[in-house]
């Protein structure tokens, strides 16, 4: 039906690294910074975004023939809001602690630029399968970026990785505190800004290097 534009596979691959929503497009910064002080938070957030993005993209793609240009954004937002409500209720039912910890950031997925951008760029123009693989690719890219930040913050801040779910101590707790003590700053807001800033710098540096070579 839609032979113009990238194919499903291209969309999928592009979402992960070449057009990574966080590292390349710098979209959806709010959840990226807010939930990444533990790996669990980051992965739950990724799951919620995956669910909402896939559902919204598929639905928008199915109704794309009926969209009126001037009401487009409103339809996107209301669709997303409905799916976010579902995701929020599901989390509250099955992962109550996580839902408490993430608090308002789950409903804030509604105004996450990534999802509206994907609806606008891909789902409103291309077929269902392209929209689906685009949504999965973008969510995985989002998860990758969140995972990177959360790894840095959790390892330096708590000395663990997936501390609550798997209980892995990357830095053994037996190390005396005068040799190495957890960096509280990484758990607090400034750590999030610094980590993401440096990560963006590192990504740009690597891109520039690969282009030169």
């Amino acid at each position, binding site marked *: 039906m839609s032979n113009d534009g990238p194919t499903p596979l291209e969309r999928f691959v592009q979402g992960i690294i070449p057009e990574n929503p966080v590292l390349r497009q710098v979209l959806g910064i709010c959840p990226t910074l807010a939930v990444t002080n533990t790996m669990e938070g980051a992965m739950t957030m990724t799951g919620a975004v995956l669910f909402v993005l896939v559902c919204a993209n598929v639905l928008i793609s199915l109704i794309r023939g009926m969209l009126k240009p001037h009401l487009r954004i409103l339809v996107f937002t209301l669709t997303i809001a409905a799916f976010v409500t579902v995701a929020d209720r599901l989390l509250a039912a099955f992962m109550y602690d996580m839902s408490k910890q993430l608090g308002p950031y789950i409903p804030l997925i509604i105004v996450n630029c990534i999802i*509206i951008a994907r609806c606008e760029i891909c789902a409103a123009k291309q077929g269902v399968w392209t929209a689906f693989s685009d949504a999965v690719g973008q969510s995985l890219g989002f998860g990758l970026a969140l995972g990177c930040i959360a790894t840095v913050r959790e390892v330096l801040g708590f000395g663990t990785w997936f501390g609550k779910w798997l209980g892995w101590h990357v830095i053994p707790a037996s190390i005396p505190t005068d040799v190495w003590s957890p960096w509280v700053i990484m758990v607090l807001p*400034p750590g999030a*800004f610094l980590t993401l800033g440096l990560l*963006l*710098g590192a990504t740009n540096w690597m891109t*520039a290097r690969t282009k030169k070579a």
Partner: protein
Amino acid sequence: MDYLATILLLAISTALINNMVFHFFVGNCPFIGVSRKLDTAFGMGAAVTFVTTIAALLSWLITWAVLAPGAPLTTWVWHLIRPDAKGVVDLSILNYVVYIFVIAWAVQLVEMYVRKFFPALYKAFGVFLPLITTNCVILFVCLEIMKHVPSAGDVPDPWGLDKALIYAFCAGLGFLIAIVIMAGMREEIEHCDVPKPLQGPGITLIMAGILSLAFLGFTGMDSNLAKILKPAPTPAPEIKAAPPPAS
């Protein structure tokens, strides 16, 4: 005095201590995107403050009257339809959809009103208005207010309309402060020799991190202020520790 102190504490803790950008990370997209110039940053901040306050007013009213568990309007309508109905009527599942609708509607309304009646103001921040429908600050404020609207359910700390409005205004003010400081810094950093990979969002985020570190310095200010503003009515008599037994 007591009321004033409560309001002042709420304002300070919202605008400075729990600053929207530096503490809750909401509104980061415009914070990074629109903070290149001082005057546009100020326009964006003012527009956000304005719309946040209006959206807070609307969402408080709607939540209180329609959406909250046991809301009066919904209960009344429900009893009209089914006079023998029992139990609490609860529409709070619709919260998110209704809020986003209210915000989009408020933005549209404000834009039309300002364009018609205040052309000068429209020139100052009109162009930012459509952008802020998807600004997290506004939805975040609505969600915070949702938690505090007095209703039939058990609300730990109910807010009246006055507190909700002050909260919303100060949240917008906190965003304004943050984005204006950031724009001032970015105008200066234009003249600096930033390493190439960090140019643009990278250095902005690192500066935001340092600013956020500075804003951490406000922590604890509210409890100290509370001590000054609201002295305990009758200080409890100190219980003297028993003298240590002579060894």
